[in-house]
């Protein structure tokens, strides 16, 4: 990742955090989970969730369930 991309990403994340706080302060009615009430909580959840998803699918499920494409050829 180049320096400029990283800087741009930092700016975007900072802006999102600010908007998060703003939305929190504006006191709009809110029923969501706790991760909605923490600044950048969704970002953290997204990174964590996507990471776990990739890890689980690619490292565990794929090992368990992957078969060669000819697996069913003899069956119906």
């Amino acid at each position, binding site marked *: *990742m180049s320096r400029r991309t990283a800087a741009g*990403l930092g700016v*975007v*994340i900072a802006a*999102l955090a600010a*908007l*998060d706080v*703003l*939305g*929190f302060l*504006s006191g*709009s009615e*809110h*029923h*969501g*989970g706790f*991760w*909605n009430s923490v600044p*950048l*909580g*969704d*970002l*953290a*959840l*997204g*990174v964590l*969730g*996507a*990471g776990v*998803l*990739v890890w*689980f*699918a*690619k490292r565990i*499920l*794929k090992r368990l*369930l*992957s*078969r*060669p*494409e000819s*697996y*069913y050829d003899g*069956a*119906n």
Partner: protein
Amino acid sequence: MSALFLHPAFWLFAGVLVVFANRRRMPGVPVGVIVALGALLALVRGVEGTLETTVAGFRLVWFHADRLSLLFALVFAIVALLGFLYGSHRMRAGETVAALLYAGSAIATVLAGDWITFFVFWEAMALSSLALIWQGGTAGARRAGMRYLLVHATGGALLFAGIALHLAGGGETSLGALASDAPPFWLILGAVAINAAIPPLHAWLTDAYPEASTSGSVFLSAFTTKTAVYALLRLFPGTEILVPLGAAMALYGVVFAVIENDIRRLLGYHIVSQVGYMVAAVGIGTPLALNGAASHAFSHILYKALLFMGAGAAIEATGLRRLSDLGGISRQMRFAVAMYAVGALSISGAPLFNGFISKSMIVSAAGEEHLLWTELLLTLAAVGTFLSVGLKLPWFAFFGERRGVAVRPLPTNLLAAMGIGGGLCLLYGLLPNLLYSRLPYLATYAPYTLDHVVSTAQLLLATGFVFYLARKTLTPSPGLALDTDWLYRIPLARAVSATTRALAGVGPVVRTLRGEAVTRLDAAARRLAAPGAPPRRRESFAFRASIGWTVLFAAVAVVITWIMVWLRNPG
């Protein structure tokens, strides 16, 4: 008679006759486009009302239009129009007839007002979709179609049993929410769950949809599962078991999509995932959640058809269907890729696209009911959706390294259909009230609030970040992943063939044993009568044994009956 023209399915069924009569002279597709347009016009005014006919003593409510059924019928007609436009350069008469019947019976199912009409068109939908799959024309399509048939015949049998029990128990003849304490409830729920592709009953979908033709899978992606969502809304609103099922389903599809290599099967897993949102919403059962389910079905049909069109465009252009074979073709099909991107952003729930206005409604409804786990799972599923459909599929199929894949130019009608589909996704995303004003239940919702937009942006950003880090790990490789279809493709198939072999074997075995017994008795009798005479040939005993068997059966039957008679009135 004028009432007939009001029914949108009438247009599609009439189209079948026109195509069939001219099957050798003209391509069927202009007819498809025209009659789908007719169906659409019949629906746009949105006339509510009920029309019924008493046929042969049965009261058949064949047109029952309220806001819920009209919403589904409208989007069905739209997607039928798009599908015929999309496929018009390659669809022959057979496929057009199957697609017309399929679309027509899906519309007629959601407009059915009584159980019998509903069942008739539900079955017609299963058979015509099967015909559409078989039109794929390959050996793979044929075998997948047989498995599809097996699953849907089971579903049809469950539905038939459920309706028979319901009506025999004095149930209402008109469609309505079912009481949950009776067997019909569970039988019908099972049938609908099969069509809604709720795991572990979902494998027919990911098995069969990729095997249809490119235009066939556009139709398939729209009707069967969404008719099941309609049935859930109509018959099972607020059934609590659907909440965990739907949430698990949303995540299940996403996880399998991560490791999938076939582009249309990947999209099929995302049908399972997206229908999971709707199933969970039906289970939550508040007016907001039910509106969410209905509107998400509406949005889903549009963007999923668009995504399948995009995948089909890649297949049409290259003849390849695996992510591991594709790559580096975006320059030669920019418009199709752009429209695919619209669909991908819609399914990911990005603001300004139509997925956002309906998906956020369901997540909010879960939040309002304090269903923390449901909300969490649905949020994670949204992350995974963007990861697979929004990033992985386009990256490896359209962008990525160039492999020197030959790309044919795409026909105009195909691009036009994609353009209209993309335009609709944007239109509903930008003007949500176009959809909200047609929703059936009383609940208001504002999608574009600050916190919705910000949290969605954070989730999408985080997903993109993870994809960037893990793009090497996510590189697809050839191979298939086992799913629940394994259960009937290997163990069940083996059990059935073993059973039939055993049953077919019983006859000869019994005959041989009997023949053996008769031979010995016969030989013994002969030895007594004429010692030293040669034994007789075997063949005649097969015939004699069948008489022996009958007499034996009669004797056993006499004894059993006599015992039972004696038990009933001893002495």
